[in-house]
């Protein structure tokens, strides 16, 4: 596709290769509520490397969405991000996003770090045409050449396989859910951001629409080497699109590694539990099992390892001492006292459940 080659204006992996464009250092986020402080994110340290796609997976309440919104500082007023640092690097300069003043923060958003949200259904101002919202975005970043912006946006719409004439002067309610999500994706590329955060980009879409979005994202990843952070509760999105995966549980990253390691050699019982709980379409019938219990109360977290009340390998140590992320392989880390037991389990019983034909 010829029009895709000029989509990325300054994406140069070599140049930025040394240093990850985004580093989270011991990030904590808590919400004040009447019942107490909700500890949504507790000490996340992660690097997002240039040109890679990293998936944050976890269930509701694991803190993944809070973390995503925290990076662009769009959390509600009751949220507090501290302690911790969010370091952003571009062209050799380095800033802590959390300490940016309002003006620079506003510029950081979308130009450096754009975000595609889960609920594309409600992503657009219902009383403004799509084009007005695109033009708003460009103007806010001092890009005042109307013709240029329009040309660029038309290119992007073609890239996401939408009919530009149909979309550009439409109101959001005139577009289907899939079209809105693709439009939002097109707008997210408008300023050629260095980082793209995608929060549940395919949730609530139909399967065939999901597939077109996944294929588009794969094109962004493979052809254009966009640096992307996926946030999803859906393991399949990670399997389809990620280079690396971070599993989150109760506000912490409990396992981090290349996608094959996480899916075929998980070392954290929670990652293994998730894999064993999710069915695949292709292949024969496999016995599945779910993780017992329910996610923890974020106001009154369990002591020690937060997963121990639901963990089949839990020992006394787990209820008193909290494990840290430790290296369990090349670039593969897990926060568990019993990584060996997990490994044994997989060797003995196989990764997934029994097969039936």
């Amino acid at each position: 596709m010829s029009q895709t080659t000029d989509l990325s204006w300054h994406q140069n992996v070599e140049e930025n290769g040394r240093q990850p464009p985004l580093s989270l250092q011991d990030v904590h986020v808590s919400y004040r509520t009447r019942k107490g402080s909700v500890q949504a994110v507790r000490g996340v340290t992660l690097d997002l490397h240039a040109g890679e796609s990293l998936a944050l997976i976890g269930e509701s309440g694991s803190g993944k969405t809070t973390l995503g919104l925290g990076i662009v500082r769009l959390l509600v007023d009751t949220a507090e991000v501290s302690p911790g640092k969010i370091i952003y690097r571009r062209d050799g300069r380095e800033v802590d996003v959390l300490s940016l003043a309002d003006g620079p923060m506003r510029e950081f958003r979308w130009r450096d770090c754009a975000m595609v949200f889960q609920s594309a259904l409600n992503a657009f101002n219902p009383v403004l045409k799509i084009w007005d919202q695109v033009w708003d975005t460009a103007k806010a970043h001092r890009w005042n050449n109307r013709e240029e912006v329009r040309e660029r946006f038309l290119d992007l719409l073609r890239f996401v396989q939408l009919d530009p004439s149909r979309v550009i002067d439409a109101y959001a309610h005139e577009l289907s859910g899939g079209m809105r999500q693709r439009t939002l994706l097109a707008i997210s590329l408008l300023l050629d951001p260095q980082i793209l955060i995608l929060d549940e980009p395919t949730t609530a879409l139909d399967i065939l629409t999901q597939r077109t979005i996944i294929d588009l994202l794969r094109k962004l990843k493979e052809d254009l080497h966009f640096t992307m952070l996926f946030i999803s509760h859906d393991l399949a999105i990670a399997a389809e699109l990620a280079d690396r995966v971070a599993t989150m549980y109760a506000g912490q990253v409990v396992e981090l590694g290349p996608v094959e390691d996480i899916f075929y050699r998980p070392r954290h019982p929670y990652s293994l539990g998730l894999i064993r709980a999710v069915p695949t379409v292709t292949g024969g019938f496999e016995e599945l099992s779910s993780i017992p219990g329910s996610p923890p109360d974020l106001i009154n977290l369990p002591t020690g390892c937060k997963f121990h009340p639901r963990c089949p390998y839990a020992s006394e140590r787990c209820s008193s001492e909290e494990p840290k992320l430790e290296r369990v392989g090349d670039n593969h880390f897990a926060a568990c006292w019993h990584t060996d037991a997990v490994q044994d389990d997989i060797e003995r019983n196989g990764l997934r459940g029994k097969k039936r034909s």
Partner: protein
Amino acid sequence: MTPILELRNVTRYFGSGRDRVTAVDSISLDIEPGEIVCLVGESGCGKSTTGRMIVGLLPPSDGQILYQGQDIAAMDKADYQQYRRAVQIIHQDPYASLNPTQTVRQMIMTPLLRHQSQRSAQNGSGGGRRSRRRDAERRAAELLEIVDLTPVAEFLDKYPHQLSGGQRQRVSVARALTVEPKFIVADEAVSMVDVSIRVSLLNMLSRLKEEFDVTFLFITHDLALAKYFAWEGRITVMYLGRIVEEGPTPRLITDSRHPYTQALLGAVPEADPELAKKKTHIELRSAEIPSLLNLPAGCTFHPRCPYIAEGECDTMVPPLERISEGGSVACPVRMSEPTQLI
């Protein structure tokens, strides 16, 4: 054996005049007692409307629904009541399906007491109000145990907002069981529940099928779930109000014939990186689903179908025809072509 439930050319419209939408277009379906049938399709395909018509929450605009061989529209009051209770529904949204003003105890006891008194009135056996209440209490406790809400005493006096999504769905199931249903429509019953506990809900439902001889119609958009839940049953695929393919689950998953089914199967993201890379997808001619207000002529899938036979697909509504491998397909063009997904 008479099917427990039979749909004959059931059609449902919404709206009128120019705004009329055909949500379900003349579908026929037989479900045998003890069977598990999955109704699969994307949003707007009419699967939920079908489910609600089966439960009697929505009358069909045309066609008949038969329960144990009897047309529900022609039933007398007693039969209709019996049918009404025999067919129950589990809703999708665990936050909307329970009344926030009632405790679990109230939600389960109300139908128990109401229908128990009617039963005993029929049998002529009375029993005091008190003993009836005690019976109902005992039954309520049993039901909660059946759906794994134990220890029971801990859950009885809880309000819905004090329960997790999974627990709420269990209460919904227990509530449906109060009337000893023969047939349960599970409308996306697990899709809003966390991934890690979905399977235990599904396993619980499968157990009900074994223990209580309940027949299931499982409505879902997720083919992987359908495959898991109905491996020994059947899958029926709907597209824009019509059934396009149905058959025994293993056949439908491994050897689907309708291009739409194939597109769906290929499109499902797989939670396995290698599988995800290897899998082939059918490329559709259009990514957009047509509007229900303005359905294409002929096969409704033809504007998107890569195998379109001009002059045929865009004029004739393809009939659902049996195939020797099991089930039936509504695509004369492709029905004899086996598929390979990997």
